[in-house]
């Protein structure tokens, strides 16, 4: 299995052009302040108002390596760094023809090509950056850790092209591990074959095709019995939004109120996608669905989506968080907490998972859609526990207008300007409301518990 690697991320909006990073690089690589020896290059923006970066991206499929006739360049399978061996290099410069970003360049003073080597995992440029414009992203360790864990689902699950739910449940169950019981109520997740067909299973863990209405309680029963006999088993629900917000809500609410020790994950695709894209209680205002169609008398859903994760916080269960598949490290952190919490109380994760089939957008765009949901505040990423209250985990300082998100999605194609303005208002209101929740002093509540 391919490995993931640490990388350098540039945040141009934080860069003030001080070029301390370049000095640090020249010092680290050549013991000089001569910036021509720096392998990272901060450039002024072409319009003069910001900064650009020329730096080796340590590509996964490095064309510089492919173009090298001498074997001097290799992609290091352990570190991911594109290594350059000076003793093999013949200075032909063909590598520079392979790089679209000027990551490997020739400097006459240096005498041959040079490129970033990531300083053996401790980049000097990052240490020198005062503004956090350069970030050493090491989440790869996390991904690799996941890769080493066993996939708890069989190959060949039949999710739609571009569906993030399969990715989500595979990642989730890798972390949860084999000592678990999974319940999947009717919907896309069993529909893609997780519970199997005709007596054959799609999972390596015990998995149950629970009812749409009963998942939380059923799992609570499983967990209760294992607690009785002293066995530690993680009880996981992989439910859609119908099985959580609508028909399943009574069960979810009851389990949350009792703080049943289960991990309930709502994979929210904003409707009944498996049965043909009907609307659910969390289908957003204005959204086309097969039961909130668009016609002369009706232009998509006429009511708002209920904010289910916020409702869940009102149950005072042990942990509630929202997540997006485009922000997996955020999700991993929350999942790790949720797994731990679920040993003693209820953990509820609400994951917003756009549906390319039902929402009408290209299957290649799913992760972009996820990103844009967060960038526009259409989706807010936060977590809650009774002791510490609610806090944002990925606050968006300058959100893009929600129209940038809506126009990506076919199910909003019909929206009028008034409807878009209305959605923008509700998004703003939602964030303002969540913001108020983050400010609640919870010490009293904590001591009361």
């Amino acid at each position: 299995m391919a490995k993931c690697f640490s990388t350098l991320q540039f945040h141009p909006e934080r860069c003030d052009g001080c070029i301390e990073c370049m000095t640090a690089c020249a010092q680290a690589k050549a013991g000089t302040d001569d910036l021509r020896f720096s392998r990272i290059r901060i450039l002024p923006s072409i319009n003069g108002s910001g900064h650009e970066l020329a730096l080796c991206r340590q590509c996964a499929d490095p064309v510089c390596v492919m173009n090298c006739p001498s074997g001097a360049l290799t992609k290091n399978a352990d570190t991911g760094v594109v290594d350059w061996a000076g003793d093999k290099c013949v200075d032909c410069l063909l590598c520079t023809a392979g790089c679209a970003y000027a990551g490997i360049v020739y400097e006459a003073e240096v005498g041959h090509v040079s490129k970033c080597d990531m300083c053996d995992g401790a980049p000097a440029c990052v240490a020198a950056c005062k503004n956090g414009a350069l970030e050493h992203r090491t989440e790869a360790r996390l991904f690799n850790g996941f890769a080493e864990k066993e996939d708890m689902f069989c190959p060949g699950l039949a999710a739609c092209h571009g569906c993030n739910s399969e990715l989500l449940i595979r990642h989730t169950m890798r972390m949860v591990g084999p000592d678990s019981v999974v319940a999947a109520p009717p919907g896309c997740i069993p529909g893609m074959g997780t519970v199997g067909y005709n007596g054959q299973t799609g999972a390596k863990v015990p998995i149950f095709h629970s009812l749409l209405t009963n998942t939380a309680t059923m799992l609570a029963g499983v967990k209760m019995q294992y607690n009785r006999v002293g066995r530690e088993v993680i009880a996981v629900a992989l439910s859609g939004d119908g099985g959580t917000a609508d028909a399943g809500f009574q069960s979810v609410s009851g389990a949350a109120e009792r703080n049943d020790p289960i991990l309930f994950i709502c994979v929210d695709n904003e409707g009944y996608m498996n049965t043909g894209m009907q609307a659910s209680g969390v289908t957003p205002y204005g959204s086309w669905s097969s039961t909130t169609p668009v016609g002369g008398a009706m232009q998509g859903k006429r009511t708002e989506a209920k904010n289910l994760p916020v409702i869940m916080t009102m149950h005072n269960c042990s942990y509630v968080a929202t997540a997006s598949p485009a922000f997996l490290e955020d999700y991993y952190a929350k999942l790790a907490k949720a797994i731990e919490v679920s040993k003693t109380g209820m953990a509820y994760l609400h994951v917003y998972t756009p549906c390319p089939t039902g929402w009408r957008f290209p299957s290649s765009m799913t992760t972009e859609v996820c990103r844009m949901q967060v960038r526009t505040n259409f989706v807010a990423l936060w977590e809650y526990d009774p002791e510490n209250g609610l806090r944002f985990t990925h606050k968006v300082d300058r959100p893009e207008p929600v129209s940038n998100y809506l126009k990506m999605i076919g199910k909003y194609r019909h929206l009028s300007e008034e409807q878009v303005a209305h959605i923008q208002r509700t998004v703003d209101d939602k964030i303002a409301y969540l913001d108020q929740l983050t400010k609640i002093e919870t010490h009293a509540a904590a001591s009361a518990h």
Partner: protein
Amino acid sequence: MHSKYLIVGSSHAALEGATAIRLIDSDGTLAMLTRDARLPYSPTILPYVVSGRSRPDKVKLRDESYFRANAIDFVSDATVASLDPAQQSLCLVSGETRRYDKLLIATGAAPALPPVPGLREVPYHVLRSMNDAVGLHEAMQHAKSALVLGAGLIGMHAAENMAEARIGVCVVEMQRHALSGYFEPRASTIIERTFTRNGIRMLMGRTLQRVERAGEGCRATLSDGSTIEADLLLVCTGVKPNMDFLAGSGIETEAGILVDDRMRTSAPNVWAAGDVAQARGFWGDKVLNGILPNAVEQGRIAGLDMADDAGLQPFPGAVPLNTYSFFGQQAISVGRAHADDGVDVKESGDDDKGVYRRIALKDGKLIGIATINDFIDAGVMWQLILRGTDLSAVRDKFIADPMLTGRQLMSQTWR
């Protein structure tokens, strides 16, 4: 023997083809045949072997562990004699038959000998294989004088190597200037002058009339009537695709094997890539584009298509490109910098200092750039051409500092 994927050749196009196949299909049987006896190496490295800078055993592009890890059956000393696309089989010189589901022809090119009377009767060298390079390196140990026929990249490289080895070198080129495929006359002149300064006789615009044996070496008579005697004769007058074995196969060829933008030949289940392939040029007709980056890209596209990659991006068209180091100096050419047909051309530099820059724009888009001793990022320029980036708004900035402007533009696209 049968394999799902069969690749003939073992250089850049072949290797990238194999790697691409393995990205998609980790199980399908894959065999790679090469006429060479060695592990894969790059023809581009040969001048450095000639000079002694690179040792033959240190320039492998892949070693056995690569083939093992990727489950590739690497077969050396295997020369193809004929191909039968209908039977999906090919015949080796050894008589062995190989069957395939999908075939990639990446056999590269071989030296093309000019029709010079007497040439085949005298000892001469070419430079296309490792054996050629080793042989030439050996011969240089004893030679005092050398005649290099052809002032292309290989010939120029070799001439430089010989001069550095204190051999008296004479380069004879039919065209009026050296490296005329990449540089227009002004740039070529700067390069030729450097060669001349380093003691190399540059006889441009001349052809060989006749060659005859003279002692251990040869005597050549040029079109201007002069004669040159040399211990060593190196013929670098271009290459021709290795495709003789296609005779009778029905596969369409012109100068090379004709391929479409997915590197498919006219025969089902047969692909071709690299120096042997004649693919669409970025600006029009199908062309041979015998450069390493082209082989890499074509090999990769062919491999992905053979493995049915759904997300395959077809070949954008061949763009000439080269980076050339000579006597510690650098010349870089991307695209059609020498174009002069209705083109916005800016030339600058200082011929005496050997600094040169020529930028060719058309309709606000870059179509070529060439520099000497004025570093530009060839990859950045290549992308600006391929992407058709509109430079109208930044034309002056680009003319003033193409390297900086190019980097700025590409940095923006990466975010």
